[in-house]
């Protein structure tokens, strides 16, 4: 098991390095001179050139790349061009917001998706099932920002239960609607996945045996069925850590949450390369760690799965 984890961690590091490299080259290809952005409209070409030199932009790509990696190894993410502050400080203030949104979002997915999945698999083919199927399709196919705006309009403007966006002091009430927005699509997805896997599992021999020996229906589903049927859902949760990083950019924008998404969005607009790089780095770490976590939970749920 330890060997497996180490191997996966190394693979993950490789993946992160790859992402960084590609992003670095992309920011180099973009036909924009960050020095010009910093220098502003009234700057003379000499001033632009001087700022470019200070930032090391006049050095060849490989030199800049090695320089960046060297700093990264020393946990130095560089200084933001636009904000004129350390990128690590920016990440430190924005990361907790995104983490909280992610966790509450996943909680929403599970709390909505699992009950629906169970109900529709048990009551297969009923009107309930069809209603839930419809819900799932609507959920999966509605963009998160639309859900967000509709929720905001309904439950913050028309019926002022929740704040109209913003972060406040980070209290939970600011997270309810954003978490629902990111979780809505996932909930539909989870419900569908859980329904089909639970339907499969409940048809298996061991469940029939359980039923034959008189196990109560509730136990059949929860003790015997769900444990096996949850595996694909767990995998999805792990993947979601990565997928969410895409969604939170939009949702954080709609709800004015000062998370990584907002940090990235603002940085991209002004081509603040160090901040973009920092954001991409964090995102890739999320994806790698999420996948790893999902893989490690498998054997705990299903003793048949073992890693070597």
């Amino acid at each position: 098991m330890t060997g497996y984890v180490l191997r996966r961690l190394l693979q993950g590091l490789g993946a992160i390095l790859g992402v960084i490299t590609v992003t670095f080259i992309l920011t180099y290809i973009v036909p924009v001179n960050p020095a010009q952005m910093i220098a502003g409209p009234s700057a003379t070409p000499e001033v632009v050139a001087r700022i470019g030199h200070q930032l090391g932009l006049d050095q060849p790509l490989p030199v800049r790349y090695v320089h960046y990696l060297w700093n990264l190894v020393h946990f130095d993410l560089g200084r933001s061009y636009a904000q004129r502050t350390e990128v690590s400080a920016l990440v430190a203030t924005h990361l907790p917001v995104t983490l909280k949104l992610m966790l509450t979002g996943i909680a929403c997915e599970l709390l909505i998706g699992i009950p629906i999945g169970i109900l529709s698999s048990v009551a297969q083919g009923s009107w309930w099932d069809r209603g839930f199927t419809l819900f799932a399709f609507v959920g999966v196919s509605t963009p998160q920002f639309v859900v967000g705006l509709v929720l905001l309009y309904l439950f913050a403007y028309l019926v002022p239960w929740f704040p109209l966006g913003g972060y406040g002091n980070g209290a939970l009430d600011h997270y309810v609607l954003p978490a629902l927005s990111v979780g809505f699509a996932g909930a539909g997805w989870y419900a569908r996945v859980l329904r089909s896997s639970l339907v499969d599992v409940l048809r298996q021999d061991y469940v029939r045996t359980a039923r034959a020996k008189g196990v109560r229906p509730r136990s059949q589903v929860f003790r015997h069925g769900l444990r096996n049927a949850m595996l694909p859902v767990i995998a999805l949760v792990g993947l979601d850590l990565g997928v969410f990083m895409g969604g939170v950019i939009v949702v954080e924008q709609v709800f004015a949450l000062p998370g990584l998404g907002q940090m990235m969005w603002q940085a991209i607009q002004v081509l603040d390369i160090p901040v973009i790089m920092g954001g991409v780095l964090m995102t890739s770490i999320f994806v790698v760690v999420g996948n790893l976590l999902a893989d490690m939970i498998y054997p705990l749920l299903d003793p048949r799965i073992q890693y070597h």
Partner: protein
Amino acid sequence: MKLRMWLLALAIALASAGAAFAANSKVVLTFQNDISTLDPAIGYNWDNWSMIQAIFDGLMTYKPGTTELEPALATSYDISSDGLTYTFTLRQGVTFTDGEPFNAQDVKYSFERMLNPATQSPGVGFYTGIEGAQAFIDGKAQGVSGIEVLSPTQVRFTLTAPDATFLNKLALNFSFVVPPKAVEKWGKDFGHHPVGTGGFSMKEWVPGQRLVLVKNPDYFVPSEPKVDEIEFQFGVDPNVAFLRLQRGEVDILGDGIPSSQFAKVMSDPKLKQLVVSSDQIETSFVSLNTTMKPFDDVGVRQALNMAIDRSQVLRVINNRAGAADQILPPTMPGYNPDFKGFPYDPAKAKQMLADAGYPNGFSSTLYTSNVDPNPRIAQVVQQQLAQIGVKLDIRSLSPSAVIDAAGQGKAPMVWSGGMAWLDDYPDPNDFWWPILGCDSAVPGGWNWARYCNKELDAQGQKADAMVQPSQRDARIALWKDIFTKASQDAPWIPLFNERSYVMHTPRMGGIGFKVAGIYTPVNYKEIEIVGGQ
């Protein structure tokens, strides 16, 4: 069980949400983007520009609500007859909000800090006319020889050539005075720990969330500021801010009225009275690269000007602007009310194209920012020019990519929307040297039309040498003549002059909303609470 806990949490959250907003005397503003810095030498954005004006002061400022200059940290000034030296007598008894006294040495220090290349100030270009500034920037001198401290209350600037807008430049943020001690203490992070002599001091700044400014009780203008505290909330979507304003949770929309709500607001008498509109000193234009074929032909450029029905363009932006007929906006001194530009006449435009040797039109490329509504405006231009046979290929890129391509002189046509030239100070020469003068028609320059008319440049220099207040009228008349000739030469297709719309709650008022092209979005020192909620 889990579900029940979730519901309980929900209930608690709901209760706390209700208690969160009690009546409050402070003013709340929202912006979508976090501000980058409050360093006066560096900040150059729509959102932080006037925050810096609230925290810091320069030697000069504008009379509230006007474009009339008056001394701020100075009490008086004297201009030599050759227009080369400016001697300022400074205000006495002024302290920075950290308690340090202000004196002439701080003025010199602040200028040298701003000019120092390590500061990376975008404003350096305004001050290279000070004697010795260029040598200092190039590292050839320890200090700027043209800034002399005569006594603790007197400072003298010497210029290399007369500059009629030098006083305007001393009212720009970049020239604002910073306290040496605090700057040394915070170093590169001074922009996040600003200390000035201004009407407000910074109480709190949580990046990405909020900035709180509180009134400086010792401010040297006793009548300012008129509110005790201003809280800026960041990351607020303009649509959400608009809803919150109607609930009274937000006093002023920093980013203006969202375009999707604009028509609704202006047709609702109750909402409309909460809107203050002001003409910006701005022109949005399509630049025509005069060094490229066929735009090197003035007939072609004039023909394109005639082919555009500007009212169609204005419709795209809900008429949030006035149609432009020349380079200078009507709010800028030097605007020529008798010059009617090139009225819409597609038949004549087609004829002129034929005369210039393009009876079947030609093809070209129009660059535009990809931020809405600019691609839509570019499409209107595309459709209208198609009527006279000019086929445009639209390149919609990020603003920075457009600025880069245009600055390198690679773009035949550029729609300036979203990147347009806003005045730095209300003087016509600010619309000449950086965007139409020969010196700016260089790689990285902002003269996207690559327009270079040596004769008009020479006249401009002549106008800028008229520095005495008594010569002002003659000077403006000369600039008016220059711009009329340049407009006739049509390096641009001027489309419109933007209006800015600020929306506030009924309780807000004051002269601070009259921005005169100087404040963005308002003058924080002059906004006041005039009524109940």
